[in-house]
């Protein structure tokens, strides 16, 4: 298949728009259908994303990275023992395994203000890529606030709600969980953050949480995500709640004039 011989293809004369987005725009068409190359590009991306779901996270490596930065860690496991069970049993992914509960109980009880939980979720790539740089920004800020923080909990096969039990164990007011989001075709390494004020296991629902999603190279930057998270933390400390009634009201000062520009309207 040669591009030169694709005489049937109508190209879209608005390629230049691709500078603004990684979306699959201006793909062209043959008749009204996708040209062969665009069709196969899609299949390739789907194959990569499908496989990304099943790549296990290297917890030991992540632990070493965080230890090198001077942060203590502990590895915990949910009740979903394998990735296959994790995919089919969200209920088990929300619960700590018996050994994880034992592990927590065997550590010296610490009164904490905030727990930081990391879960592999649906994208180990996201966690492997973004957790270390993001925590190296976040943890100093939390320490500067005077917050007491127990070791960072790294959870195998964890869902968002598993943070609630960990926060309760440490009687922590604030629960921050970083999790690998479902891999997209164009961003198999997207990380999300869920924030819950006074998380209660089995009681807190999605309405009690705030979500900051799409943290990856073509999405939200670490700095933007951090700014949003710190805003939510500070505001929730005043309001004494998080969730749908706690609104992210950060202003995007990073968006300079060029980024604000819109060729359709200017």
């Amino acid at each position, binding site marked *: 298949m040669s591009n030169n011989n694709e005489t049937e293809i109508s190209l879209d004369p608005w390629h230049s728009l691709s500078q*603004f987005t990684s979306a699959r725009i201006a793909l062209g068409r043959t008749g009204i259908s996708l040209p062969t190359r665009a069709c196969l590009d899609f299949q390739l991306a789907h194959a990569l994303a499908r496989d990304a779901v099943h790549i296990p996270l290297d917890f030991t490596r992540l632990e070493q990275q965080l230890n090198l930065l001077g942060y203590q860690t502990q590895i915990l496991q949910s009740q979903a023992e394998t990735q296959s069970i994790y995919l089919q049993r*969200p209920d088990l992914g929300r619960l700590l395994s018996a050994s994880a509960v034992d592990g927590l109980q065997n550590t010296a009880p610490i009164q904490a203000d905030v727990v930081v939980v990391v879960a592999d979720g649906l994208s180990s790539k996201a966690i492997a890529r973004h957790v270390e740089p993001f925590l190296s920004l976040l943890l100093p800020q939390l320490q500067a606030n005077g917050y007491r923080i127990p070791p960072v909990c790294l959870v195998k096969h964890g869902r968002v709600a598993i943070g609630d039990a960990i926060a309760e164990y440490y009687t922590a007011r604030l629960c921050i969980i970083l999790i690998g989001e479902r891999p997209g075709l164009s961003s198999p390494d997207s990380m999300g953050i869920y924030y819950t004020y006074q998380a209660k296991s089995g009681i807190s629902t999605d309405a009690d949480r705030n979500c900051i999603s799409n943290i990856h190279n073509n999405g939200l930057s670490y700095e933007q995500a951090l700014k949003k998270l710190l805003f939510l933390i500070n505001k929730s400390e005043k309001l004494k709640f998080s969730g749908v009634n706690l609104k992210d009201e950060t202003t995007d000062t990073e968006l300079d004039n060029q980024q604000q520009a819109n060729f359709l309207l200017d």
Partner: protein
Amino acid sequence: MYKTHIANLTYDFKTLRNLMAKASPSRSGDYLAGVAADNNLERVAAQLVLAEVPLKQFLNEALVPYEQDEVTRLIIDEHDSIAFALVSHLTVGDFRNWLLSEHATTNILTAIAPGLTPEMVAAVSKLMRIQDLILVAKKCRVITRFRGTIGLENRLSTRLQPNHPADNPAGVAASLLDGLLYGCGDAVIGINPASDNVEATLRLLHMLNDVIERYQIPTQSCVLAHVTTTLKAIEHGAPVDLVFQSIAGTQKANDSFGINLKLLQEAHSAALELGRGTLGDNCMYFETGQGSALSANAHEGLDQQTCEVRAYAIARKFKPLLVNTVVGFIGPEYLYNGKQIIRAGLEDHFCGKLMGLPMGCDVCYTNHAEADQDDMDMLLTSFAVAGGTFIMGIPGADDIMLNYQSTSFHDALYVRQVLGLRPAPEFEQWLQQHQIFNADHQLFQQPDVPALFKPAIQKLK
């Protein structure tokens, strides 16, 4: 009451709620909830028993208690017994026969819709094959209006979904223009904001409004933020066309979404007061999907399909412009593979249409589900054959913000071409006026950008 004896086995399903769950076609969410039939025989036994249940029984036996659930109260309190009268003597099995018969014409189906409860509709769908779901849905006609007319015969509308992972205005505009130039966007131009942020929502609302005004596009906009965020935006004077909200079929599930009927009523009134529709005042956009209640651990022992249809009772109360079942978004825990997603999408469309709703379908899947583009082509084609109201239009089918695959602008053109379907008439006229579509309703073959958008593109070079 719900007993049968079959193949030397006795089945006693005890309650209508249990009977409904056991009669449901197989899907992973019902196994996860522990409510599914244990085997094929039990499922068919339940279907045989369900076929003998009088429709009236659904008015006597609430599947979620009236006292504890405002969705049940809505269903019972607003039931239209006069509209119901025509079919009130039927059992569920006879109701299926009647729906498929020549007696059930478009006009009669429209007339009985307010008399049907979600549970009656869900029950009959459980006895239907895919061709039944398609045949009856195609007879239903639901027309809604804001700045265009949605749902006319032989029309298929599209929601243009130009999402961007950082809500970047130029990034959104690039996908938006790509979609318009492929003839998409007559149902709504609807953006999922990356974060539920008041400022970002305001910015996107103003931008969409400015684009629609500048280019005189006969469509409506929506930023799919939480209803409370949209209410704040309205307080700030934002140009809100459609109010969006995800809804579910139990009060407890809606609690977990941070909503209730009173809040939706407030939002509906606020949007009506803005009065921004030119052809009509259908100003709500709801999204639903099987499994959402179970995902919030709020399914109240119901199977996920019955739960889903109960959400349509909420939608119906607010006369929406659009209702969208986001069928494959939730993941394999609830709909495991292409087969389950396809059936669920067609069930949702049938049930919504029978209840009088303008049903669209986000023909979609995630990368952790056992599904692929072939499955989506099957659902897309069947959905359009069934007379589906609208589908999504996303560049190359790849949503770079929500990280899932839906239908592309090309997909919409495909299904319109093979089935002879056209966009909403007002939008179609705009496409022809600006030489995006030709007189035969096909994309123009031209080497250049249509004149309307030429200045915008030329600036970039």
